[in-house]
């Protein structure tokens, strides 16, 4: 005689299926999280370096820069650490006397907020400004 499944057999089969699906679900979620984390990290890395490059052409007239770039909110604070006058004379290509420059050392604090996570970076930047009137080194480029 052909024996049919009982309800207990069906329930046990379903439980096993549920468990299997649960494991698959957890794996997919873990993979998804890992991928999102690596993407976020990649985005953070590129954005931090992009902002650092962008800062290198700023004149630092403002002491605080704020905004959003690549879905990351940033706040950059500039502190002046040291100012020195320096007389520049060079050898090699373009050798000669280039006059007095004011060289300033700045400490930059960059706070990047990505979702709920806050990332802080600190680094130093120097800027030089010619003390000759109407002379900007980048004009010669």
């Amino acid at each position: 005689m052909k024996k049919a499944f009982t309800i207990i057999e069906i329930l046990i089969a379903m439980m096993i299926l549920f468990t299997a699906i649960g494991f698959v679900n957890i794996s997919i979620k873990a993979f998804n999280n890992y991928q999102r984390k690596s993407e976020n990290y990649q985005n953070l890395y590129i954005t931090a370096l992009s902002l650092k490059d962008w800062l290198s052409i700023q004149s630092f007239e403002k002491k605080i820069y704020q905004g959003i770039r690549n879905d990351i909110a940033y706040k950059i604070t500039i502190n002046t650490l040291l100012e020195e006058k320096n007389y520049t004379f060079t050898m090699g290509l373009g050798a000669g006397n280039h006059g007095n420059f004011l060289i300033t050392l700045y400490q930059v604090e960059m706070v990047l907020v990505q979702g709920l996570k806050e990332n802080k970076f600190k680094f130093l930047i120097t800027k030089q400004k010619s003390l000759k009137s109407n002379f900007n080194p980048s004009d010669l480029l």
Partner: protein
Amino acid sequence: MKKQAFTLIELLVTVVLFSLLLATSLYSFRFISLNIRNINNINPKTAIYYDLLRDTIGSISFYVETDEKERDIRKKSYYFFKGSPTECFFISNSSFYYNNITLGHLIFKDNTLWYEEGRIFRKNVNYMNLNSLLLEKKIIILKNLKNVSFSYVKGNNEYFELKRKIPSLINLKIEDAFKTRIYSFSIKGDNDKHLEKIRKGKELL
């Protein structure tokens, strides 16, 4: 013996459990399909390529003509740069593949951001006429993009076309199906370049 059939309650329980199972599977499949779509759009090497590109663009330099003994002819040095909204040509001291002076070409075409480069100082290459230069290496930086627009910052102004002047910053506005990103690359060595007296205006390409 009487054949035992399922009762209504048993059937209902089975249907409910089956629906739950189906709902869970569909939810998982949604995740999987989203993931697969994302994977197609994200190149895992993006950060590495960004770094290499940053080094290459950061080392954009003036072009110095040399004599037959490869000594610099100081008065024959030129700025070389050619930038448009979709591509830019530049000469760099550092590059992706070679530890040598190369002509770099960054271009957006066929929904892909490409980088090409070729060595300048090679046999049978007239390094003062770069039109004939073979760009021997080619690499995909990003793919499946909607648009990439290039802009060049020089002084306090932003340009979409720039020739024979080296910008201080190159911005790439990259749009794909999901978001828009801005990548910036500063050109380093500014501190040295102001010491150079470079002759401007020579077109090499």
